[in-house]
């Protein structure tokens, strides 16, 4: 069989990607996996207590189970405290400071790029 959809190949000079073949194979894979999934038990449990939010040993309301978004990167900021704490000090809220940083970084980048 000929490569009928070869026109979609993206060539970067180092690598290649053809999204059409990927989508085609993904579609076939979806059918295979969905067949396995479909063979599974079809009934869904609807018992009230089993489906309710559970926290700290008791059934509680939906609002009380909410986890704050500020927790998301806790592990990350905790591990890289050495970087984040000094960075926070730089966030003074003064636009003049931010513009100074911008000019400083721009100057360094221009020297680096121009020098190289």
């Amino acid at each position, binding site marked *: 069989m000929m490569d009928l959809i070869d026109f979609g190949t993206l060539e970067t000079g180092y690598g290649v*990607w053809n999204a059409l*073949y990927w989508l085609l194979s993904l579609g076939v894979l979806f059918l295979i996996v969905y067949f396995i999934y479909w063979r599974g*038990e079809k009934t869904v*449990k609807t018992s*009230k207590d089993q489906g309710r939010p559970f926290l700290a040993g008791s059934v509680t309301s939906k609002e009380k189970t909410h986890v704050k978004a500020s927790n998301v990167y806790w592990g990350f900021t905790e591990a890289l405290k050495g970087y984040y704490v000094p960075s926070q000090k730089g966030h003074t809220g003064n636009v003049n400071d931010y513009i100074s940083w911008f000019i400083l970084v721009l100057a360094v980048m221009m020297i680096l790029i121009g020098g190289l």
Partner: protein
Amino acid sequence: MYILRSVLGPFVVAFIGIFFGLLYKGVDRILHARMQKRVGPPVTQPFLDVRKLLIKENLVPENAVDWLFNLMPVLSLVSVTSILLYIPLGFEPLLSTKGDLILILYLLMLPAICLMVGAFASSSPYATVGAQREMVMMISYEFPLAVTIISMVWRLSKVHAASNLFTLEYISTHPLWGEVGVFGAIGLVILLVVLLTVIPVELSRVPFDIPEAESEIAGGLLAEYSGKNLAMFYMSDAVKAIVMAGLVVALFFPYTISQYFGWPLYLEYIIDFAFFLVKTFIIVFVSVTVVRTAFARYKIDQVTYVFWVPVTVASLIGLLLLYLDVIL
């Protein structure tokens, strides 16, 4: 030709990925048990687990976003299995010239993203905390993983001039070990260690099973999953082990043995595939079984530190050594 491969290839890789993934899981559990002086379950236990999960009723939490909650397990298995189409499994990848390592790097993220979206959709606080931890882990290990892969391809580009350097077919047919000097060889060993370190965290196995952490957050990401939904995630975890080990084999140990036998072509395919299975099993044994037996679970901030500082520095040293190998 490639249309045919795109249609029939998924059947081949789905069988290989799911069957051997579950088999490796079974062997891993036995070896893990033996190292702890236990008998352990039979090798078929993961197959029995999947069968049991498929006949169990599916429970959807009251506040969950139903369609996302049910769709993500299927998408997770689909996306992780599709990676096998681009990895040499002892023979040429089925879509060898239609996707490269950059694509694989992105596809590797999809199962983790499916897990996170499914966990957030379940509305469980345990699952939400698990999903948050998974996000932090992802941004921790992606950088050293990318540095390792880019370093190897960059070094390869200094030896060969080809327009498909990033495809695994090219990399696996042009092993770097024979092309580099002393500095390069040391650099490659360091990059191999980095990649072996990334495998357990990519698979969320002990000591990096923080997003699931049964004893802390009751299964985390998977806390609300049951029945066939859990079976899908269980199988995608098994396939991911084959994918990660296959990636290490293709990058570092792509050698075949069929040329020494002079057997008919179909037997050559079989023996090279068998050799591939042996190599991937050794990789899984070293980076998953031994590690999860020997270590206890890290905390999430420790994982971030390990991957952003020592492992990233190691991968950059590997890159530097490959650079020195070129200029000296």
